[in-house]
């Protein structure tokens, strides 16, 4: 469309210029003005992401004036308000990775089975219920999931494993809540990937005498792998960046957890918890910006990973 548009646009301008009536001059001027406004908006979008990286990066890197790189990334001691404060963010990094990994591990099998069910097996009317339902669940605010975790999952886990309904905070309830939150995302992306496969793949496999299960397992799943991986990475990004739901169920003690039901803190919740206690430009506050930078770089890395995965599928 855009190639045609360029050519046609130029022709229109030329013919307008030849006649040079007042109307076409005004048209051409307006046209150029609007074009530059649109380009300006596009530039602004790029400016926003770059300024986020620069501002958060600059504020975060101020941390290293007071804290060594080794201490921030490898010390497990986080006591920023002590007389000789220490800023070890390793517990947060560790819990973030553990939590994201566990929630993906819980969500992927069910999401993938659901995607296969919706794309291959479910009768039409079930599909027509499940599609809008999954959209709805992507749209439910994360605090609402957090509240369910707080009022249902935490007491349940506490009673089951420790005999007290207030001992259920930790990585496990957070991972369950996150798994429910990211499952619809992974499901709908994987279902799209399965559905967009050419029908000939399925028909050829069935015609060769393969059963439906053999077709799914040996033909369709491998063919849809890039799309499924994209969905999983998107889910991973959401799990790493989720803040409020996790805050409500993880307990928020700044330590490396000894078990999955031990109160701990991840990067996002450490920021939320401490921001209210800190003043701007103090080492403590800067350390929070450094954590935000780590989150930002992680999510940018995941975007590049998706590009790599999706790019490989086009080559195929």
């Amino acid at each position, binding site marked *: 469309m855009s190639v045609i548009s360029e050519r046609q646009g130029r022709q229109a301008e030329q013919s307008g210029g030849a006649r040079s009536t007042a109307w076409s001059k005004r048209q051409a001027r307006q046209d150029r003005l609007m074009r530059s406004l649109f380009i300006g*908006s596009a530039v602004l979008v790029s400016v926003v992401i770059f300024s986020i990286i620069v501002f958060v990066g600059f504020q975060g890197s101020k941390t290293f004036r007071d804290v060594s790189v080794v201490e921030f990334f490898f010390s497990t001691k986080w006591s920023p308000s002590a007389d000789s404060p220490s800023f070890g963010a390793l517990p947060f990094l560790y819990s973030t990775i553990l939590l994201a990994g566990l929630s993906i591990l819980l969500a992927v099998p069910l999401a993938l089975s659901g995607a296969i069910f919706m794309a291959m097996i479910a009768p039409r009317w079930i599909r027509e219920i*499940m599609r809008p339902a999954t959209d709805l669940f992507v749209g439910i605010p994360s605090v609402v999931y957090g509240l369910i975790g707080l*009022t249902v999952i935490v007491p349940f886990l506490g009673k089951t494993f420790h005999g007290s309904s207030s001992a259920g905070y930790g990585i496990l309830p957070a991972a369950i809540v996150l798994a*429910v939150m990211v499952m619809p995302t992974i499901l709908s992306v994987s279902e799209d990937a399965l559905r967009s496969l050419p029908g000939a793949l399925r028909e050829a496999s069935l015609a060769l005498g393969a059963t439906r299960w053999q077709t799914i397992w040996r033909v369709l799943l491998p063919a849809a792998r890039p799309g499924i991986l994209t969905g999983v990475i998107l889910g991973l990004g959401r799990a790493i960046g989720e803040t409020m739901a996790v805050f409500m169920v993880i307990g928020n003690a700044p330590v490396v957890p000894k078990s999955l039901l031990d109160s701990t803190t991840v990067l996002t919740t450490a*920021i939320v918890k401490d921001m209210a206690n800190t003043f701007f430009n103090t080492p403590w506050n800067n350390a929070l910006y450094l954590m935000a930078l780590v989150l930002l770089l992680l999510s940018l890395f995941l975007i590049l990973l998706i590009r790599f995965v999706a790019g490989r599928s086009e080559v195929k």
Partner: protein
Amino acid sequence: MKKTHSRLTDRIATVYFWLAGLAIIGILGWVLYDILSKGLPQLSWHFITGKPSEVSAGGGVGPMLFNSFYILFLSLIFSLPVGIGAGIYLAVYARKSRFSDLVRLSVEALASVPSIVFGLFGALLFVSWFGWKISIVSGAATLSLLNLPVLVRVTEESLRSVPSSYWEASLALGSSRWQTIRKVLLPSAMPGLITGVTLVAGRALGETAVLIYTAGTAASRHFPDFGLKEMGATLAVHLWYSGSSSLAPDARQIAQGSSALLVLIVLIFNLAIAIPGRIIQKRLTGGK
């Protein structure tokens, strides 16, 4: 022998996938039931329109509900022109170039930024550098950054779905590109655009991490208060605050009521998208 074996595996697999599908429907249905069954009894006219109270029971969420929509409205005013403009650029003007690649990558990157990072950026830029303090306008400006990538993507997609013959016919009749965009492309893309904006609005209404340190967790005493520099706790922020650190004795009930209210709003938004879309589709495809 081998054939019966693979047929049995196929049966087992079919049963498994049915169970998985039913489990997912079950989980989603249970979540919805849990929210609504606990929250709907809390909803009353007094709760929806009343003022909150910090330490005694019986507080309402009126100012928070108002702030939610007010901040949403302001953030859309900030982000719609830029988002739609950049979307038009990508759909209509952009050829494959370094610049358009950069814009596309920026949109993707912006969409992946965790919302707490937007929140910290807003606290840095709007709250302290611009000196807007923790206020409604800081919250709305930060929220508009979160809306931006979705708006760009939605605009580009709905413009691309307009058949290119419309574009060619309009230019052939002698209209300029801007006239074609304004009079032909945007009106034909309008259903898609409206759907997209509704999705953005639903997401923005439930957003919390962006707003805690930009719009604050307290609401103005006056109601309704249109002051841009007032603190502006939204319904979702209030829900988080009630669920985790409020001193009110009925905080749990307030949180459950707020969460049912939020889910109802999201439900209404989703229905508002689904119903007109289905009617239009039925008309276009002859009821099929």
